[in-house]
């Protein structure tokens, strides 16, 4: 398979999974999609190396997450994007249940949010989550447990609030 075919297959097969991961981290679908596309652009620029990696998706995932967080934090990004491109094109809104869970995820501490997203949304085993986040396996397990408990609490509060409204 040529490098082009290799990249195109990789792009088509992994983009949705990567979008879900970055969206869970940031809660903004348009930003997430932009970050994922930018990460693929950077991946193609280095494809002769990245294409040889055992797991090129990990590289794109890390890159996309950093771009997304960076953009989220780049306070001028919205202004810059606006004057570059005009109002953003309509992006299909995720369903209300999706928005509710992602909103709760965003309220978790960083390390718990990332661990939950990698484990449940990307589907990485605990050992791979540990490798990608640079912490021991036991720490990942603890973060997953604490994150699950905290998320359950947040969703329960939201459900109670909705019932009371």
């Amino acid at each position: 398979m040529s490098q082009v075919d290799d990249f195109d297959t990789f792009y088509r097969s992994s983009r949705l999974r990567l979008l879900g991961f970055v969206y869970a981290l940031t809660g903004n679908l348009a930003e997430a999609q932009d970050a994922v596309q930018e990460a693929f652009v950077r991946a193609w620029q280095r494809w002769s190396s990245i294409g040889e990696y055992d797991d090129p998706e990990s590289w794109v995932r890390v890159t996309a997450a950093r771009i997304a967080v960076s953009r989220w934090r780049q306070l001028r990004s919205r202004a810059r994007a606006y004057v570059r491109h005009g109002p953003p094109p309509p992006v299909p809104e995720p369903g209300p249940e999706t928005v509710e869970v992602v909103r709760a995820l965003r309220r978790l501490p960083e390390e718990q949010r990332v661990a939950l997203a990698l484990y449940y949304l990307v589907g990485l085993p605990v050992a791979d989550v540990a490798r990608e986040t640079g912490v021991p396996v036991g720490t990942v397990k603890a973060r997953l447990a604490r994150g699950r408990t905290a998320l359950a609490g947040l969703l329960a509060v939201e459900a109670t609030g909705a019932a009371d409204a």
Partner: protein
Amino acid sequence: MPDNLEELANRLARDFTTVRWPEPGQIRARARRRTVRTAAGAPLAVILVVVAVAWALRAGSASPSSTGPAAGPPRTLPATTATTSVDDGTSIPIDALLQPEDVGPARHVENEYTYPGGVYPAWTFSHEQCPAYAGLKIRAFLKYDFMRIHQIAPDRPEDFDSLAVFVEAHRYPDDTAATVMGDVRRIVAACRRYDGGPSEASTPERPAHGVHTLTLLDDAFAGSESLLIRHHTISVDDRTGEQVGDPITMIYVVVRVNDLVTTIGRYTDDRAAVQALGSRAAARLCLAANPRC
């Protein structure tokens, strides 16, 4: 409870099936165009490579997993986020940053992140499109020892754009924090008004460019040093000179307390509201500043 997350994975796959993606050839073309532009801008690229290598070297010495992906393909995979697990005396506790109770009721902290020194290359005042910016040779902000960021969001998501407050704090070595404050002043003075650049602003249907205005509104009202800055952006039609769409205004307050600098931003034109946040932020920085106050 894992049901929520397992269901979420399924729902995301379902919800996102209608997302439109560029064809792979378009992604590759974007990469090619950028490569050509990079070659054309070689002198700038050389500077960026030098800076990137410096980051990589610093990151490499600080943590084996913190090499930034933008610096080139890593031999070992960088961590998805940069979290410090060991307190070497430079970290900043979350309570030292502005908190929801400082802002108002029905708010919460979200998207919190921490970064050890040398990992995060951007900062709020990177106005690279300003023609004078490069000549200022702004570098001090890169020397931070520790960085913590989060945003304070309203509980009602529909209020996010008007009420969200973006918060970051850096700890700097020696006298660097004072240099950073001086750099912010220099940027605001040199980039008082600039065009965002026609090539970046243009679209085929409506060629336009951004016009940015930076204004120092006040200073010396909190902490060791403080600045209140307004960033106003409009989009101007290249052909008619008329403004396109609504302007965007953001007010920043930058406060230094000894070796700590916090920057707080909000999309608003209410300078008094943001300035008040600066005073509360100064009191919190005192908890973690070296020396304490």
